[in-house]
């Protein structure tokens, strides 16, 4: 039986919320597609942190598994997303998200 965490779990979750909000801001405010991607990664990470914290609190390993899956999906997403960016850059010569509001080559 695991002892309860020395640091209150709420603190972890709050930290996660703060990071999430920062990620959100990144997505909203930056125009560089790569940076937006990185912000999304940040958001995913903050969610992961919350998951791990809850897992610690409730003493189940399932949260960890969820994080594991999120990491995997994130990897997949990054692979495809970056590939998209590269492809778009080839045709548009720009990765500014504002230049991409039309589906045309």
């Amino acid at each position, binding site marked *: 039986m695991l002892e309860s965490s*020395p*640091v*209150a*779990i*709420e*603190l*972890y*979750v709050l*930290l996660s919320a*703060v*990071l999430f*909000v*920062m990620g*959100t*801001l*990144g997505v909203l*405010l*930056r*125009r*560089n597609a*790569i*940076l937006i*991607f*990185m*912000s999304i*990664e*940040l958001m995913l*990470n903050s969610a*992961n*942190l919350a998951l*791990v*914290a*809850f*897992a*610690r*609190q*409730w*003493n*189940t*390993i*399932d949260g*960890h598994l969820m994080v*594991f*899956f999120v*990491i*995997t999906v994130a*990897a*997949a997403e990054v*692979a*495809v997303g*970056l*590939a998209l960016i*590269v*492809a778009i*850059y*080839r045709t548009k010569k*720009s*990765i*500014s998200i*504002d230049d991409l509001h039309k589906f045309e080559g």
Partner: protein
Amino acid sequence: METTVELILFFIVGGVAIAAAAMMLMSENAVHSALFLIVNFACVAFLYLMLNAAFLAMVQVTVYAGAIMVLFMFVIMLLGAERLASDSIPRFPWLTRVAMGLTMVFLALAGYFIIESDISSTDPEPLKPMVQVVNTLPDFAGVDVYLNEELVAEDVGFRQTSEFVAMPTGEYTVAFKEHGEETAESVALLNAASLTLEDNQTVALILLPTDAGYAVLPLEKDLETVAHKYETNVQLVHAAPGYNAVELADITKPDLEPHLLVENLEFGQVSETVVLREGSHRFALYEAGALDKAIANAGDNPVKASSVDFLHRPGASNLKGNTTTVYIVTPPIQRTIPGQAPDLLHFTNDNRPAFGGPTSVGMKLYTTYMLPFQVIALLLLVAMVGAIVLTRDAVPPPKKRFERRLANTASTPIVGESSQD
């Protein structure tokens, strides 16, 4: 004291994480942003460690900070995209204010949720009690054991143990019958009219014969204990009716005095857990007080293990780290011969793996989460193929390249070829 240290650490690391995130957001250079993000990820990994998620911390560093971020860096460098997007004129000047406002509202709400929800005071889900059967009944080839008519162990042979079975909390009546006898009535057990199972309990039910019939001895085991990696737990159970109290000693080194582990254990009693180093051990079972007597007799001479009369001395047993071994004193197989020494039986359980370690994650992953795991793997595969397809250039067919190479060899042998690639 420990709490304060951790708290301080948390604030430092959390602060760094937030700072790194902020720097990532604000830095104009994409490369810098990426580097800051790495710092942030490292901080999160550290927090994982503090939350007993050692395995995930490792994955976080290798996969995220290592692989994914390298990918980012690579793409940034490939496109030369460090400052690309900032040249254009900002399109939605109002967006900054709106976004800030909305996110702050979001944060406030989330914070309200978190604080109101009172996570820390919520107790974790209790574990269901686990039951295991140990058969020391020499009279039967195999027994089926029932708890309230529910079969928990089937065909457990003499000196064998069954797998753990999770049972709901509650009162139970234990009964058993010989395996394979379809019609046989279950054999009543003398002292086990009822057994109470509680949450988080791990119980080994030791079936043992008594002079009057058959009895069950519930042995509560603490498999949670995180033993040192190189240590092993040993317990002794006296389950031989009609025999006097016993004591157990470690006689791994025969020339030294036996190291007494358990003393004066009466029938039906269970000893405390003794922690030993892992490795090969020899034990000897004595009648209670026999060792003291021998020491007293010997006086100043050192008592050699070999010289003390013992009840039973099994061969060397190899005890592995992070396990619990239970030694059970049972009556001899042939009970008809009076005065014969009791037998010593042992069985070993692995202790539960540490929370958050690779073993626990892996066990869960390969059992409960097998299907999602495969789906995720497939997804990864598809993403990989997709990435290849997307980034694939309009490569001229290989045949053509071959022709070109031929043409080049005719004119400028090497330079022409490399320039094509």
